């Protein structure tokens, strides 16, 4: 039982990261492989404000979000839009986006190594045990989970009920037709990309409350977020959340029953099954 709850708590935070990535990949069609570095940057900001100025990570995220938003907006408009424009085909854009975001990810890691060194960083915040359904959990994990729930909920409502949210979903489904009905595809793509980045960085801030990070852990998060997005279905927020919770549970199960060193292997096995049997994602509709 406590494995299940630990897993759900972890999965909630994964959901936040993966929702951020899915906004970028599902809506804007840019596979952002620098996603994990954004998490580490978000986590590092939380760490720095907590240790240097004793600012609660839950407050830091309000600073992290707009900064990450602006940064991702810039990345999209300056670096990625020219690629979108020059791409002759979907495949070429895919390759260019993969190489560019890999490049950004390595640059980010390199800069972080140069500025902060290669040490692990962690801090103690709300590390009080809390009793929940007969087992104890860190309060920080529960707070992070609640933060994730609030943000995912808000995002879901925004995408389904606000005008820009609906427009972004229209772009995801049919970019050509969206243009015809008067949607400013360029502006909204940038908006969705920036928003995805902001959500991811906030997720990093929340995760740092209970996980130890270092400059080069980003790629692990990127991998997990990618697996979740594909498992849940590209562009499908509901699927992403379900897949994230499933992955969280699977990981905590493998970590406690088999070996903590095998969590990624387990995630991979799950990924392989998805690729073999449901490549369109858990809730995706079959193509043929």
């Amino acid at each position, binding site marked *: 039982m406590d494995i299940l709850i630990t897993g759900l708590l972890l999965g909630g935070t994964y959901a936040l990261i993966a929702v951020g990535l899915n906004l970028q990949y599902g809506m804007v069609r840019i596979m952002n492989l620098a996603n994990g570095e954004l998490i580490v940057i978000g986590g590092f900001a939380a760490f720095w404000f907590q240790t240097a100025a004793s600012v609660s990570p839950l407050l830091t995220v309000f600073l992290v979000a707009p900064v990450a938003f602006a940064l991702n907006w810039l990345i999209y408009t300056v670096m990625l839009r020219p690629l979108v424009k020059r791409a002759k085909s979907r495949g070429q854009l895919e390759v260019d986006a993969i190489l560019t975001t890999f490049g950004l990810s*390595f640059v980010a890691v390199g800069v972080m190594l140069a500025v902060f060194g290669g040490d692990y960083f962690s801090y103690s915040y709300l590390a009080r045990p809390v009793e929940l359904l007969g087992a104890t959990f860190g309060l920080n994990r529960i707070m992070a989970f609640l933060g994730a729930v609030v943000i995912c909920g808000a995002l879901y409502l925004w995408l389904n009920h606000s005008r820009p949210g609906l427009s972004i979903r229209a772009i995801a489904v049919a970019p050509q037709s969206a243009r015809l009905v008067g949607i400013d595809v360029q502006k909204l793509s940038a908006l969705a990309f920036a928003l995805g980045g902001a959500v991811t960085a906030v997720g990093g801030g929340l995760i740092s409350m209970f996980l130890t990070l270092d400059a080069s852990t980003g790629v692990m998060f990127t991998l997990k977020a990618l697996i979740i997005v594909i498992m849940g279905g590209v562009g499908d927020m509901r699927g992403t959340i379900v897949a994230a919770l499933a992955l969280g549970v699977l990981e905590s199960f493998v970590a406690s029953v088999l070996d903590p060193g095998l969590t990624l292997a387990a995630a991979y096995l799950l990924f392989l099954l998805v690729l073999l049997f449901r490549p369109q994602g858990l809730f995706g509709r079959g193509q043929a």
Partner: protein
Amino acid sequence: MKRDAWQDLALGAVLLAVAACLPWFGGSYWLSIGVTIAMYTVLATSWALFSGPTHYISLATTAFFGIGTYTTGLGIDHLPYWVLLPIAGVLGAVLAGLVGLATLRLSGVYFVIFTLGLAELVRQIITWVQNFSGQKGLYVLTDITEADIYWQLLGLAGIVFLGGWAIGRSRLGFALRIIGDDETVARHSGINTARAKVILFMVPGAVAAIAGAILAPRYVYIEPLLAFTPMLSFQVVIMALLGGTGRLWGPLVGVIPFTFLWEAISASFPNQTTLLLGLCFLLIVYLLPKGFVGLIESVRRWAKSREGYA
């Protein structure tokens, strides 16, 4: 046409023979650089054989390489060394085939993600198995010298170039060029696209595994983190793309300068190799989308057109 082909082959053989003289003339420093260059030439050229025409970016080099290293590490006490190389090749090819079957039907993003994690997956499994048996690493003690390793890698490079040359002239090579241009046309022309891609992906898989098996004696002590360094995959991608995948010799043009640059950076700023990799990726996308090969060819075209006007 025919005569050009023989000229290319002869030129390749001469260059290979010249390169083979290095251990007699260069010192140990140059020999070690030579091993590095030969290794990356083998890896990047075989990588480009698959990824060049298909545009699928494989990050699985490390996984295959590590499997090869472990084949030597585990087998050296039981089997003669010369048997281990083909075994490593077969293991690499089989793994590549399995990965290909699972992912090559799908879009390129899925393939990148899967290969990115493949090395980590294999590493975690090996570490886990080793924890059971209680050993942390393996000793590979042989009397194979650095020069032996160098010659073996050169030999492998020769095979890769010859193989690439033959594939380029075969139906498989032609099929892959069509697939790279338009997969729908390829299918409707009667090409079994999934099979062609899987078969070709087995080539870099086998080659990287053999390279790993050849290099294992150089490491002496093998442990998972060493055999499965994630950087290797990225370095190979960068070198191949930097050189250009449009020509068989393209990756070589990327390998040589990059190796020296990498050596220089890791000697003076060991922490900044990651940054270097990142900048190279961006350089490739924004300035050299077709690599040095593309650059050389456009300069040549430009020179030719000037000649035409003069």
